[in-house]
């Protein structure tokens, strides 16, 4: 119950104009698709995997789910994973190794359906060196046993990659083991439930006054049996309460656990006294029931999101390995080979090699991509090393550019939307991402001293986030404890003078009745329900305290790029004479072959098209060209396209075009240009209007001011708009607001906001793909849910009010119970009934009120069942998430 199945990014439906859909991966097929056994495939890669699985007797893969496969984007190369054979790397990765057999847990983000689970657990059929494998679907992990003598870890990784499940390795993420703490929590709750049920069984005769028929020996036996069964519940199941209460007392802080521990001790002690004195069966039924409910409340709140990490530092964003040049080549002389196209760009010999590699890979990699390159672990990267960065790869350390030209996308670090063109010798900062062809760079600083790492040395990252002493519950429990102990002492003192025999009884009765079960249950259950409801809307909260902090927010700071704006099809405009349908199809087919973000956006804006492209060529930093249906098409920067086209057609253009303009030439004639703009997300206007009245708003952008006017109109005159903000500027801005006593919520994405997210009272990370990496934050919000922010804040406020109402109910109940107990009138029978009734009423009130509020606010639909089972995630189109990752949060970690 504590696991969450997350929905993957669902790609917009692509109309397969020609050729149908791939039998393996379901993507649209080209006009003349590769076919086998009457089944069509989108590429030879898919066909290869299909025939491989069939030969290995793994046909069932296709029966479990239609088109379950993952398109293999790039050739699987054993050499790419060579760094995994480094003993130092293996030490951090392997769960177990004895020389003969090793076990490793790999993160495989591509796992998405039942067929994946089945295939990966039948992996041993593909290679004799692989033993048992177990998949954890919620964590997207597979634990695989293998014999290192028969298959090396690098070969295992290559094999997984070749069938579409590319393992993901990142720095800083070491072994993620299921904590024994969770096992203990289950045992505690089970034992408490056992004690509760069985003691209740024995107490039933007393509730109805039937015990008299059995005589006093029955009462004695029931009493002692109850005490025996309650003992492990009090000592083991409730051990966390004792520990927290002791810790709280030593810090001289009256946390909620202090009155709970007092109450538990008082109930058990008075039960022992009663049983020993033959007065009654004690209160063990109420005691164990209370512990059981408290543990349930804790479990309810401790819902964790397996795939999400709220505490990532910069290391989590870096790949585990880089490609290093062994012998430095002369400057700018290395061949720049386009890595796009995956299997398209492979020769048939290489394709055969991939397949053969699955079975025959032993010691020698069959395919070595480029002579003189090696994959090394990032920890072994030294200053002065020359490394090769391919398209979309992240630069792990500050470096100098060796290749003649590069196009670096710093959106991840600075928020600047447009990639920066660099020339040889330029200084590149860590965190930049190469766009286009492969480049070669020389590192000038160690990884730990890079520009990115320096951001993490800020004070904001050292403070601990969760100071639970400030929580609403603890604020209430502080006075609650004082009042209860005061009343108990006063009652004891009063009866000491009037009737000393009643003194002890009234003292314990007050403690028993006032045991803050309602107080302890109201917050966990309400917040647990809120977290659960929001998770269904793809809004994930780090913990329950975030809700209280969200309710106190009065200032909201928004990041621009990626948060309010999105780089998608809406922002693509064509300037020039209208394109014909054929021309649109040609351009889209060409653009599809490049992984440059601009190409991808154009391809998506024009609609899917899969015409065969001949003589495809990508010139890094300039553009792409190819021949489609006999037409030569060029797509790229103005200078490059014009230089390759008929110059007479460049009619009357004044000045240089704005950044983000892509020119098109068909058969040597310039047809026009695509203007790529970041479009504001729909409904952002409404969101800002609804927030504007109640919160102080500010916009921080790392981008330049070219869109300032647009946002001034959107935000109105009161809001602060700041452009050209560095990550440190953003952090400082938040600090200044906080010094003025504002409670700040920062909404942002990417590493450039990491400092601000951490400094803010509530940091909201906006992600395009919830499984992708996001910076340290309190809330992870799916990008499409940004417009709901106002409602989420309202809901948080409502949740806090529900908890307060729960406290009032509990206070009234306590007033009633305590006054009777202090008067010395409380019968054990009444006490035994009142306690469970109050607990159950709080449970119903908290869960019911939170769900009802959510329905009323339209956050969940009225028709849906209260808690439907987690839906199976829709299959993520393998192509589209990577688009998001490059353009959007830029948080992909493709090692």
């Amino acid at each position, binding site marked *: 119950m504590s696991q969450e199945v997350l929905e993957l990014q669902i790609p917009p439906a692509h109309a397969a104009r020609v050729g149908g859909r791939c039998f393996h991966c379901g993507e649209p097929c080209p006009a003349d698709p590769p076919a086998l056994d009457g089944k069509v495939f989108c590429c030879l890669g898919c066909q290869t995997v299909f025939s491989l699985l069939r030969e290995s007797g793994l046909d*069932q893969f296709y029966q479990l789910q239609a088109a379950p496969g993952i398109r293999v984007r790039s050739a699987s190369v054993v050499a790419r994973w060579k760094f995994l054979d480094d003993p130092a790397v293996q030490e951090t990765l392997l769960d177990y190794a004895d020389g003969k057999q090793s076990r490793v847990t790999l993160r495989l983000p591509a796992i998405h359906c039942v067929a994946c689970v089945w295939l990966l*657990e039948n992996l041993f059929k593909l290679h004799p060196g692989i033993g048992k494998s177990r998949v954890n679907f919620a964590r997207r992990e597979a634990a695989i046993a293998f014999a290192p003598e028969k298959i090396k870890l690098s070969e295992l990784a290559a094999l997984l990659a070749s069938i579409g499940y590319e393992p993901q390795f990142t720095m800083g993420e070491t072994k993620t083991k299921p904590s024994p703490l969770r096992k203990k929590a289950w045992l505690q709750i089970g034992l408490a439930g056992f004690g509760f049920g069985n003691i209740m*069984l024995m107490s039933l005769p007393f509730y109805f006054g039937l015990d008299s028929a059995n005589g006093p020996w029955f009462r004695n036996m029931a009493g002692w049996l109850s005490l025996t069964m309650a003992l492990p519940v009090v000592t083991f199941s409730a051990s966390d309460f004792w520990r927290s209460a002791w810790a709280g007392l030593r810090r001289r802080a009256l946390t909620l656990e202090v009155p709970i521990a007092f109450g538990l001790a008082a109930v058990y002690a008075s039960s022992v006294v009663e049983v020993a004195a033959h007065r009654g069966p004690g209160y063990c039924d109420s005691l164990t029931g209370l512990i059981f409910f408290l543990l349930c409340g804790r479990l309810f709140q401790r819902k964790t999101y397996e795939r999400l990490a709220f505490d990532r530092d910069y290391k989590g964003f870096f790949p585990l390995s880089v490609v290093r040049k062994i012998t430095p080549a002369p400057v700018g002389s290395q061949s720049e080979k386009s890595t796009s196209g995956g299997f398209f760009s492979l020769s048939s010999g290489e394709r055969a090699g991939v397949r053969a590699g699955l079975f025959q890979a032993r010691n020698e990699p069959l395919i070595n991509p480029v002579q003189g390159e090696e994959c090394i672990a990032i920890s072994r990267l030294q200053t002065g090393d020359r490394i090769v960065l391919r398209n979309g790869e992240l630069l792990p350390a500050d470096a100098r550019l060796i290749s003649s030209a590069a196009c670096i996308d710093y959106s991840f670090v600075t928020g600047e939307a447009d990639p920066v063109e660099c020339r040889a010798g330029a200084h590149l900062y860590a965190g930049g991402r190469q766009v286009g062809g492969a480049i070669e760079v020389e590192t000038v600083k160690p990884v730990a001293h890079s520009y990115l790492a320096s951001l993490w040395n800020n004070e904001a990252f050292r403070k601990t986030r969760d100071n639970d002493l400030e929580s609403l519950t603890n604020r209430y429990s502080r006075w609650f404890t004082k009042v209860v102990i005061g009343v108990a002492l006063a009652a004891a003192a009063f009866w000491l003078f009037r009737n000393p025999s009643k003194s002890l009884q009234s003292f314990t009765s007050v403690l028993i009745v006032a045991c803050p079960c309602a107080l302890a249950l109201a917050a966990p259950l309400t917040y647990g329900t809120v977290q659960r409801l929001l998770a269904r809307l793809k809004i994930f909260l780090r913990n329950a305290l975030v809700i209280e902090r969200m309710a106190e927010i009065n200032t909201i700071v928004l990041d621009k790029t990626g948060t309010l704006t999105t780089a998608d099809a809406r922002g693509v405009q064509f300037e020039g004479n209208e394109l014909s349908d054929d021309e649109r199809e040609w351009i889209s087919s060409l653009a599809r072959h490049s992984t440059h973000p601009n190409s991808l956006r154009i391809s998506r804006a024009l609609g899917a098209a899969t015409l065969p492209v001949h003589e495809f060529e990508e010139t890094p930093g300039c553009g792409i060209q190819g021949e489609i249906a006999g037409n030569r098409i060029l797509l790229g920067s103005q200078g490059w396209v014009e230089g390759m086209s008929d110059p007479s057609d460049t009619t009357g253009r004044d000045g240089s075009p704005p950044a983000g303009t892509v020119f098109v030439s068909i058969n040597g004639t310039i047809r026009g240009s695509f203007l790529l703009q970041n479009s504001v997300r729909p409904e952002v206007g409404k969101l800002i209007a609804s927030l504007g009245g109640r919160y102080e708003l500010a916009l921080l952008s790392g981008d330049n001011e070219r869109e300032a006017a647009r946002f001034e109109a959107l935000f109105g005159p009161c809001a602060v708009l700041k452009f050209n903000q560095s990550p440190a500027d953003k952090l400082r801005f938040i600090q200044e607001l906080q010094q003025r006593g504002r409670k700040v919520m920062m909404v942002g994405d990417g590493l450039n906001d990491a400092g601000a997210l951490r400094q803010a009272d509530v940091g909201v990370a906006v992600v395009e793909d919830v499984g992708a990496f996001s910076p340290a934050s309190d809330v992870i919000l799916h990008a499409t849910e940004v417009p709901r922010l106002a409602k989420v804040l309202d809901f948080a406020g409502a949740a806090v009010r529900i908890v307060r109402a729960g406290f009032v109910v509990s206070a009234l109940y306590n007033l009633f119970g305590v006054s009777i107990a202090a008067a010395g009138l409380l019968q054990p029978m009444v006490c035994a009934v009142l306690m469970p009734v109050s607990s159950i009423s709080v449970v119903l009130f908290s869960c019911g009120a939170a769900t009802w509020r959510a329905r009323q606010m339209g956050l969940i639909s009225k028709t849906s069942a209260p808690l439907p089972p987690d839906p199976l995630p829709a299959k993520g189109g393998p192509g589209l998430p990577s688009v998001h990752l490059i353009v959007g949060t830029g948080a992909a970690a493709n090692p």
Partner: protein
Amino acid sequence: MSVVIILILAGLLVGLVFLGAFVWSARSGQYEDTTTPALRMLADDPPVKIDKTNITLK
């Protein structure tokens, strides 16, 4: 009234058996992953018992 004692003891025994079963299931990690088993059972034939010679390697 001795029948009550027998009943109580029998009831407790049944309870203890189930408690033991629960402790075993929690310890063997059945609560660690509650999603995958639900998917695993959808596949017709469970993974074939792996031939011991395949994993016990010389």
